[in-house]
């Protein structure tokens, strides 16, 4: 105990500095994050504890260098080895003291970060706090152990640092290079499909660097198995360091290595990172010159040996050993290439496949959808799925053999049904491998998948409501969250009563189906984000008429945000838009009209638009549409906001910059008022982008007004018939304009019907 306490004291100077830095960094970084204006999801563990990533490397090296610093000076080494404590005990005393400081620093950082997040009411994954402590402690200890090994092998600071890099990273760099070589040589194997022994993130300390280079790896980096594996590796490395420390002669202090032979080994090791580029595929991809790479390798070797051996003659004598790493590099190239080919060529027989798993197309993204997460757990034992996966794999392999890449095109034949899906095959003999397959038909795959009840359940399952932390970009305590939570609650209530999958990705795509018809009519999308366990998700749900309660809730929310649409200004602008004189003046209007009665009896969502500007080549045609727009504006002024999704209703956005005859801007008073209310010194002559609830979005100097966020408005029964007539004519002119301007021919289909019938299709909004 006493040597341990003494080591704690000895490391206290650096330990306290690191602790203080960690304290400041964690508070600053957390506050910076938590006070940022916008987040759309809970932060990743990497983002949340980013100061600890630097600590892994800085803390590990600094504490090891300080703890074992006596090994680099003869007098210090002699003193410590003369003390009545066994080398083993001395080693563990220093190591445990370093571990104490490391754990204290990590714990401080984690606690402070959690405290800042909690106090600022910023959502975060609580489990991260539990994972971060062992993760960052073990990762830092991995660096510490590498440095301890290095310091036990050498006797100077420079060689100690150099060897630390080699011990810490050489094996992993070689592994990374080989993995890269395989990924580069195999279009159907990604970083996430490599066998475990080639996965860069199993070692969590080097994995941090790997995930910066390949962000898709970050999801698996913090997996408990990696933490456990790294802990075992750390233990083994510390044991090795202890053995070397025990055997280390005190007289090694102030010497680079025990012998010239060992120096040569170090020199060869220093060359390996360069020659391993042969295996990584970088050379062929980036067009590196082989002589230059070999030249760099030779240069490193010569410089190292000249510095270490301090003799040109000895360096020359050791030169033949350089052939060893060079040969390793060449062997690495051929080994990697043949391994990649071998891996890629393997196609199992369907009957040998126990089950397959669909890991999700965007598994490497920052967030995945909750349904993808659930689907990735499903085991597809169905023969159709397994067979389709095996056939696709076989076809993909054959295509790569022929063309060198996945030579499929999105054409009419495939009906844009190509789908790239990472698939894990689990064979009956227990073997497991993953490939990124390009399926020729996504619908076929989905239809086969639907044979699996777990899949069907997964695609219709919404995340637990308590797991949602962000709604429409607002966090739990945000106004947007509170206002939208009613919509989400309704969506949760309604979805199980429908056949819709929660995520449209898992919906069988019908090329002949009109997604703007009847219950398919789309009123909006609601996005949620949160976490389950340590899995962060981001979901987007389509609000269709088929879910009328949700649609009604959506409309109510939208209308509630649309308190003043300034339709009077819109009408003034419309009237004046036919005679715009100033080159800078313009006006545009776009309308999304819902439940438009069609000749085939369906109700559809249709969009109408018109823009006016001086010197418009299509002015003649638009002049013909102008009366329609004028009349529509009048009707719109009489319309009322509605929250019934079955209503024949319109959602209008408009914008413009229009002068009155006296030279003032139409809406100039609004501009002035908005600027005055926003404290802006520009009173007139500027453009104001305002939402209809009065909030200024943007102000410039052009004098334009853009109105967003209108309400859903329905018409009086008397006006409905006239609106339908207006829309029929508008559509006709609009099509004429489009075909005149952009070419093409009219598509056959139903036309706008004669009369709107307020049939409760499919159900009235509740």
């Amino acid at each position, binding site marked *: 105990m*006493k*040597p341990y*306490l*003494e080591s704690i*004291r*000895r490391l206290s*100077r650096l330990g306290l500095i690191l602790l203080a830095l960690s304290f400041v960094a964690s508070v600053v970084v957390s506050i910076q994050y938590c006070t940022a204006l916008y987040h759309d999801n809970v932060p990743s563990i990497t983002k949340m504890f980013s100061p600890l990533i630097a600590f892994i490397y800085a803390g590990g090296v600094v504490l090891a260098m300080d703890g074992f610093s*006596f090994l680099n000076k*003869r*007098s*210090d*080494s*002699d*003193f*410590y*080895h*003369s*003390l*009545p*404590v*066994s*080398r083993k*005990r001395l080693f563990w005393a220093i190591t445990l003291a370093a571990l104490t400081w490391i754990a204290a620093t990590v714990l401080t950082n984690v606690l402070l970060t959690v405290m800042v997040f909690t106090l600022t009411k910023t959502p975060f994954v609580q489990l991260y706090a539990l994972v971060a402590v062992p993760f960052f402690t073990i990762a830092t200890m991995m660096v510490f152990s590498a440095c301890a090994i290095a310091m036990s092998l050498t006797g100077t600071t420079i060689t100690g640092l150099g060897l630390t890099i080699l011990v810490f990273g050489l094996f992993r760099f070689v592994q990374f290079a080989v993995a890269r070589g395989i990924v580069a040589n195999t279009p159907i194997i990604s970083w996430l499909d490599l066998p475990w022994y080639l996965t860069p993130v199993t070692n969590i300390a080097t994995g941090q660097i790997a995930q910066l280079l390949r962000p898709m790896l970050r999801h698996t980096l913090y997996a408990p198995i990696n933490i456990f594996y790294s802990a075992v590796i750390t233990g083994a490395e510390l044991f090795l360091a202890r053995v070397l420390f*025990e055997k280390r*002669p*005190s*007289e090694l202090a102030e010497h680079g290595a025990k012998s010239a032979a060992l120096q040569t080994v170090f020199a060869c090791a220093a060359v390996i990172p360069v020659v391993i580029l042969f295996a990584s595929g970088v050379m062929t991809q980036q067009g590196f010159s082989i002589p230059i790479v070999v030249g760099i390798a030779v240069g490193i070797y010569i410089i190292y040996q000249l510095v270490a051996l301090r003799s040109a003659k000895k360096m020359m004598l050791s030169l033949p050993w350089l052939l060893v790493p060079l040969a390793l590099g060449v062997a690495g190239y051929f080994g990697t290439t043949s391994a990649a080919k071998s891996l890629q060529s393997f196609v199992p027989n369907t009957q040998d496949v126990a089950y397959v798993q669909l890991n999700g197309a965007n598994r490497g993204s920052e967030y995945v959808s909750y349904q993808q997460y659930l689907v990735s757990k499903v085991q597809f034992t169905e023969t159709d799925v397994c067979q389709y996966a095996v056939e696709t794999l076989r076809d993909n392999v054959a295509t790569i053999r022929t063309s060198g890449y996945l030579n499929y095109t999105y054409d009419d034949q495939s009906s844009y049904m190509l789908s790239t899906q990472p698939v894990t095959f689990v064979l009956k003999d227990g073997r497991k491998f993953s490939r990124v397959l390009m399926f020729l038909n996504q619908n076929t795959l989905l239809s086969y998948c639907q044979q699996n009840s777990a899949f069907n359940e997964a695609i219709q399952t919404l995340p637990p409501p308590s797991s949602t932390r962000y709604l429409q970009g607002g966090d739990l305590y945000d106004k947007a969250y509170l206002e939208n939570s009613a919509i989400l609650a309704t969506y949760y209530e309604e979805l199980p009563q429908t056949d819709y999958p929660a995520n449209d990705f898992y919906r069988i795509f019908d090329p002949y189906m009109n997604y703007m018809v009847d219950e398919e009519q789309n009123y909006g999308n609601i996005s949620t984000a949160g976490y389950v366990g340590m899995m962060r998700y981001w979901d987007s749900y389509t609000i269709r008429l088929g879910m009328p309660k949700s649609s009604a809730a959506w409309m109510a929310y939208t209308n509630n945000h649309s308190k003043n649409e300034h339709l009077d200004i819109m009408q003034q602008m419309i009237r004046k838009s036919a005679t715009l004189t100033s080159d800078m003046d313009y006006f545009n209007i776009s309308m999304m009209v819902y439940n438009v009665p069609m000749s085939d009896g369906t109700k559809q969502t249709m969009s109408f638009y018109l823009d006016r500007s001086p010197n418009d080549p299509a002015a003649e045609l638009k002049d013909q549409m102008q009366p329609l727009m004028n009349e529509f504006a009048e009707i719109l002024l009489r319309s009322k906001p509605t929250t019934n999704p079955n209503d024949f209703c319109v959602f209008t956005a408009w914008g413009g910059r229009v002068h009155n005859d006296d030279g003032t801007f139409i809406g100039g008073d609004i501009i002035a008022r908005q600027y005055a209310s926003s404290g802006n010194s520009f009173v007139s002559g500027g453009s104001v982008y305002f939402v209809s609830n009065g909030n200024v979005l943007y102000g410039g100097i052009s004098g334009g007004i853009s109105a967003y966020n209108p309400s859903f408005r329905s018409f009086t029964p008397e006006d409905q018939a006239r609106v339908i007539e207006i829309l029929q004519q508008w559509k006709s002119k609009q099509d004429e304009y489009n075909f005149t301007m952009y070419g093409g021919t009219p598509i056959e289909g139903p036309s706008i019907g004669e009369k709107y019938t307020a049939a409760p299709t499919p159900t009235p909004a509740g």
Partner: protein
Amino acid sequence: MIKARKLTKRFGTVEALLNLNCNIPQGCIYGLVGANGAGKSTFLRLCNGIYKPDEGHISINGGEVFDNPVVKDHCVFVPDELYFLPQSNLNRMALLYESMYPRFSTERFADLCAAFKLDRTRQLNTFSKGMRRQAATILALSAMTDYVFFDETFDGLDPVMRNLVRGMLYDDVLERGCTAVITSHSLRELEDTCDQLALLYQGGIVFESDVQNLKTSLFKVQVAFAKDYDRSQFTNMEILSFTKQGSVANMIIRGDSSMAKVVIAAQNPLILEILPLTLEEVFLYEMEALGYSFEAPVLKGGERA
């Protein structure tokens, strides 16, 4: 007791110690003298388990020293190049020693600091070289170990401090039966302090003896006779050296000086004078007797002591 048997330590091609044998009894102050590079520091580092012998053994109280904390509990080492924790003071160093040495005495530490008049709170890197040696000595003596090893420690102390340390060592030897091993390249530094002396030369102890015995066992006789004479005239005495210039001869004789005086006086010399030898002279003559020559270090045969 410290026992070394065929102790060998090499540094690359250099043999720092070669087949060294020695016994250092408990309760003595053992001086090890030798020129630079003789192997004194290496020997002390082997005694303290800093180095592992390449061949042979070294044991203290019957136990091998290297990486053996049970044995090393009894040993403390004050090297020639001192180590102190960075930015530390004596109090901080005392904490370090206290955590490592089971019998470290804080009382003694306080007493010694007072005796040496060293400020315990002052940073050690502001101390002079001599004061740093005093500090290291205080810490070592406060460890209350059975064996204390000083590597040329006294060389840097002024006479007053040397006497102070010497007095403390004597106390430790007398009161606790402590053993001190002190090295120096200067025999004069050790002459007044040690009660056993050994000469280390080219990696081996070539001579070892009790100081008191050394001082009295050899003496110089200056004699002259009227008639011609030679060495054979003194057959019953162990003469290490005999030189004659004219009628006057100088002899280095081992044995009882009073007895030798009686025997020579019986032969009626014209001159007879018995002279004491300095310790340095005794060493040189003993070495010569063993076949070593400092001017031309040629081993003439025979095993090293």
